């Protein structure tokens, strides 16, 4: 047996796979998941998590007229940075992903419908990917819409100065970075919560432990930080916040790592966790009475 055998075998395996069928199955799974579980009334609290900052900005706009002075653009930029860093990344998206992604499989166990997914000719790995993509799509759509709304409400009040800040200044770049951070946060937390839901019957407690881990990640050694979602995101934040006051512990402290490496690092972490989920789903048995 020569060294090329594994490569040849991998090629043969790849050629044998019904990729078109997998794609159709993933599309159907995503469609079903979004319709049945995600855009429903029971997910109202997730939508609330997304719109809370938008509502606060609307209230600010309505009652604090002085903040429309162009002098406050820089202040508003820091406010927006805090909204994204401290609220969305640390709390809003974290808890929303906990709700959305842990329910993908665990919810079906509770509702006693998971067996329908296991009795169709679909590989369980495809099931994991389809459900994960559905959750990711929904969370990204929700939170990117909210971040866009926050951005609009933050700068629209300044009129021409605001438009100039966006189009001629750093505004557009910051918006792009916020949207990227939001999407990566959803992907990172989503993959972790999906795996937790397959590992634990009640993923809430491990979820809270994860939150503690993410909080103390900045003070951990470099190798341990690679296992934290927010450690990668800090390198992508366009506006650095000073670590001060009681919120310092939550504040992302930037270290010089190339954004591309940070993006790849987080994606690799997410893929590794998803691969783990694919192994975990294979262990799942339908014993609803034990739930």
């Amino acid at each position: 047996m020569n060294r090329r055998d594994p490569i040849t075998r991998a090629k043969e395996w790849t050629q044998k796979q019904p990729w078109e069928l997998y794609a159709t199955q993933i599309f159907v799974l995503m469609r079903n998941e979004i319709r049945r579980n995600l855009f429903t009334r029971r997910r109202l609290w997730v939508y609330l998590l997304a719109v809370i900052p938008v509502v606060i900005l609307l209230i600010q706009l309505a009652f604090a007229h002085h903040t429309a002075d162009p002098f406050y653009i820089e202040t508003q930029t820091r406010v927006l940075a805090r909204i994204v860093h401290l609220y969305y990344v640390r709390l809003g998206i974290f808890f929303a992903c906990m709700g959305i992604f842990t329910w993908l499989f665990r919810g079906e166990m509770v509702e006693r419908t998971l067996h329908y997914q296991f009795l169709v000719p679909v590989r369980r790995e495809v099931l994991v990917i389809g459900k994960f993509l559905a959750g990711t799509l929904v969370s990204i759509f929700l939170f990117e819409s909210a971040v866009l709304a926050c951005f609009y409400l933050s700068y629209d009040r300044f009129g021409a100065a605001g438009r100039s800040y966006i189009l001629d200044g750093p505004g557009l770049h910051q918006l792009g970075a916020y949207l990227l951070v939001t999407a990566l946060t959803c992907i990172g937390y989503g993959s972790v919560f999906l795996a937790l839901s397959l590992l634990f019957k009640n993923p809430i407690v491990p979820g809270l432990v994860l939150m503690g881990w993410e909080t103390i990640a900045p003070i951990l050694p470099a190798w341990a930080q690679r296992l934290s979602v927010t450690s990668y995101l800090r390198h992508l934040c366009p506006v650095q916040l000073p670590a001060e006051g009681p919120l310092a512990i939550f504040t992302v402290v930037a270290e010089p790592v190339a954004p591309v490496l940070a993006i790849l690092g987080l994606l690799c972490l997410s893929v590794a966790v998803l691969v783990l989920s694919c192994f975990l789903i294979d262990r799942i048995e339908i014993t609803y009475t034990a739930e």
Partner: protein
Amino acid sequence: MTSPNRQIVFDNVSKFYGEVLGVNRVSFALDPGITSLVGPNGSGKTTLLNLLTGLIKPTRGSMHVLGLTTRQPMELFRQVGYCTQFDSFPPGITGYDFIFWPLRLHGFGREQAARLTEEAVERAGMTQVARRKVAGYSKGMRQRIRLAQAIAHHPSVLVLDEPLNGLDPIARAEAIALFDSLARQGMHVIISSHILEEVDRISDRVVLMSSGYVVAEGQIREVRQEVRDHPMQILVRCSNAARLASAAFELNHVVEAKILNDGRGVLIRTRDAEQFYLLLNKIVSSGLIEVDAVAPADDDVNSIYQYLIGSIGGPT
């Protein structure tokens, strides 16, 4: 002899839920036709069906369905349709969508999936209500829509867990006719049921289960013969059960006389039924006991099953 690739094979399969026994050392091979799993609640019927379809994994042993294992879901579930006992549905789904979308997951195109869906709902007699939400269905309708989903992709193996539960007599007769016609087309139809009279009528073979063990298995005639070689049961309802039991025990061929719970009858097990009937005639003519009814209790699978598992006691 049937090729293993056409059989359903259980090879020394055991399943434990922690320390609780699900099924133990189950081995048999099934040919096409209707096979009935018979046993009381907790005897391991559903465990066996869930093992067969990969919903749970065996602690020991292996299963093959037409030569396929549960590690080949892409191939296996094209061949297998499973109508489970779980009476739950995805929230907000209609009967039509409940069948249509799984067919799309099979890889059928929209038009073909739609055609197969319509065919399945028609076979299950659900055409009129298929577009309604399942949440508004009666128990029987929910049972039928699950059956429709299980047969929609034209499987070679149809697994049905208590499929007649909740069906009215007409729907039940229609379902039985459907199972029969599917089996005549060369399909495997595996039915778990405790409605023994119906199983008796439609089964080619039975697997009798008790407490996680297979206690008898084979063609229904073979199982009957097995029973014929053993003491026959006769149920006598009478005014003085104790006196009849006492008299019966004086006969050598009577191996057991069990007084019924209500004290108004005796279940006799005898190796010589004719001698027992002669004794009964004498007792009746002497006027010591008034006999209300005499009936052999070994006429159907129910009695075979009761004899073999010996745990339910006599009829009351």
